[in-house]
């Protein structure tokens, strides 16, 4: 970009003045600029962004917000204050096995020793600790599953869309077969099959969510590619003698999948909700792992007197709801911005 270009007079075409791109627009490019501007001008998505930032900060600050009992212990195992099956309400003093007191604790709560800020679940697992570290679990699972499903979707979708013919037919049929299953049921089953083989950890549920989660991306990316591969610049590349792989990776994909990638990243919310559902149903992590669905599962034993044990549902449930809400608020706004049919319509 030369100096003249930035200071040039606005260009006039047929009475319309072309808008001069601002500094930010030049920095991130027109596509990202349109996205960012759409996001910050919509109050709902701003609320979503604030919530998301909050969750990321909680995840990053987990060792300060809820310090592990000892540096050697696995921080994802919720510390327990004894073994009694009776849950304890918020504010009860932490007697055994209390973690070190962090610097902010006395100023915020006014107390010298740890209390169970959000109460304990059955088995005396501290709910506050579980929610704080559960934020890390949620983000880890969400990012892992979205990246993996997106990669599978990209591979299947681009092979299918670019080569067409028999490859397309076969891959399409395979996609349809995976789509014939109700998602949650299939994931539940696969996780239940994998648990005896792999033991209880994040992995069975994560693998199950990946296995039955890639199909929509494959479909959408196939469509994206079908529309891009007929364009002139692809023909030009082919005329120049570029290899298939180069055309696909350098010319077709980058132009085809921008919006798909952006939208996929926002599925993290939905994925974490599904993961929590699997945990709630008992095919997720081991009991006592810092994971929101696992915490809420403790409430299953008390469905007849939930008014007494409300804190087992309310705090982790709220965490899960706000997490899902954050991604959906941003996602909804983005979908409107990226939807070509709605372009130009003020929403």
């Amino acid at each position, binding site marked *: 970009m030369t100096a003249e270009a930035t200071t040039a007079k606005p260009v006039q075409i047929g009475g319309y003045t072309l808008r001069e791109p601002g500094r930010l627009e030049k920095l991130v490019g027109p596509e990202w600029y349109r996205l960012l501007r759409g996001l910050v001008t919509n109050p709902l998505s701003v609320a979503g962004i604030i919530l998301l930032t909050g969750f990321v900060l909680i995840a990053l600050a987990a060792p300060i917000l809820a310090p592990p009992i000892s540096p050697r212990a696995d921080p994802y195992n919720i510390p327990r204050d004894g073994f009694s099956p009776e849950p304890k309400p918020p504010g009860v003093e932490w007697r055994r096995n209390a973690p070190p007191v962090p610097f902010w604790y006395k100023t915020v709560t006014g107390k010298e020793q740890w209390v169970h800020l959000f109460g304990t679940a059955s088995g005396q697992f501290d709910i506050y600790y579980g929610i704080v570290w559960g934020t890390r679990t949620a983000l880890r699972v969400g990012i892992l599953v979205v990246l993996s499903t997106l990669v599978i979707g990209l591979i299947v979708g681009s092979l299918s869309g670019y080569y067409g013919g028999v490859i397309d037919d076969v891959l399409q049929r395979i996609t349809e077969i995976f789509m014939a299953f109700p*998602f949650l049921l299939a994931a539940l089953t696969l996780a239940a099959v994998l648990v005896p083989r792999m033991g209880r950890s994040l992995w069975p549920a994560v693998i199950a969510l990946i296995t039955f989660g890639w199909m929509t991306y494959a479909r959408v990316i196939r469509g994206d590619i079908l529309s891009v591969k007929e364009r002139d610049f692809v023909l030009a590349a082919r005329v120049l003698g570029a290899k298939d792989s180069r055309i696909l990776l350098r010319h077709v994909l980058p132009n085809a999948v921008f919006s798909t990638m952006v939208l996929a990243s926002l599925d993290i919310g939905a994925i974490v909700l599904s993961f*929590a559902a699997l945990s709630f149903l*008992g095919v997720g992590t081991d009991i006592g792992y810092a994971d929101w669905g696992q915490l809420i599962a403790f409430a299953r034993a008390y469905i007849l007197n939930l008014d007494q044990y409300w804190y087992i549902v309310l705090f982790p449930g709220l965490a899960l709801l706000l997490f899902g809400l954050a991604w959906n608020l941003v996602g909804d706004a983005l979908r409107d911005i990226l939807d070509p049919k709605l372009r130009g319509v003020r929403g």
Partner: protein
Amino acid sequence: MTAYIIRRLLLLPITVTGVTLLIFAMMQVLSPVERSALYIRDIPKNDAQVERIIRQYGLDRPFVVQYWTWLVGTRNPETGQRVGGVLRGDLGYSRTGNQTVKELIAQRLPATVELALWSMIPIIGIGIWLGIQAAVHHNELPDQAARVFAIIGYSFPTFVFGLLVLMLLYAKTGWFPPGRLSDWADIVVKSADFKRYTHINTLDALLNLRFDVFLDALRHLFLPTITLCYIQWALLLKITRSSMLEAMRQDYVRTARAKGLSEKVVINRHVRKNALIPVATVGGLTVVGLLNGVVITETVFNYPGMGSALARAAASLDVVTTLGFVLFNATLLIVANLIVDILYAFLDPRVRYQ
């Protein structure tokens, strides 16, 4: 139209074969000893017995042979009877249900059908109505309210919503209890002079003229129905709204307005009719949503249907039951999607002539 249906039907065997293959592949994660649970009911007395079953049913044979045996069954060499074979409806023995998977499904199906039927009517009726209202009042207050309602709806984990309504409407107030019937009603239903026509409690109660039982069944159905509805409304509202908005931008709508038709006629006759075509696909999505939803909803409300049986089987790692249920549900879904596709072609001529 016929050609379209035939084309659509020709794809069916491929999907069904694929589904069974995938389920069978999931089964291969298990060892032959664990897979022998498909064919035996009692805990085997010794290793030799397990060995014999594995040999008898070919559980250590190559993948293709095993798959075939699993599909069509095999002849028991001692009794000469055919055993196994998912195509014959033999899905194995359920450890958690203490009966065959087929019997378990038959026993649990009516409860789930009852719940699904009671949910379906408000889901579709109110969901579409909300979507139309939002689109007609685009960017006005009803639209904004509907959008917030929808976003919260699909951000709400089913089990959290269920537990919260249970907390408020049962634990605090005692209004709507979990389960399927109160104890007294259960005794009435199981008594000899209560005829079970359909095993759907509300319907049977009406047919037996027991309105007290009917009301009791409704009381138990209320919370799970609300839970299933809220989550589904969000989806239906969103799809109807965007479909309506798109239809409202079409040229023929402008024409209709230009020739002076009233707004009511334009919306009812021109927009809604066309906008509801894509909404028909939601029928398929609703079935998926219900199949997924009942697993969690029934578990939360202790409702004795297929969903809670599946959840229990999965949690106790009873793989035979779980896979049997998934096969059954996948088949249901394939049939539902087929019906939706044909319906869609019937509604929209453009699909037929593709």
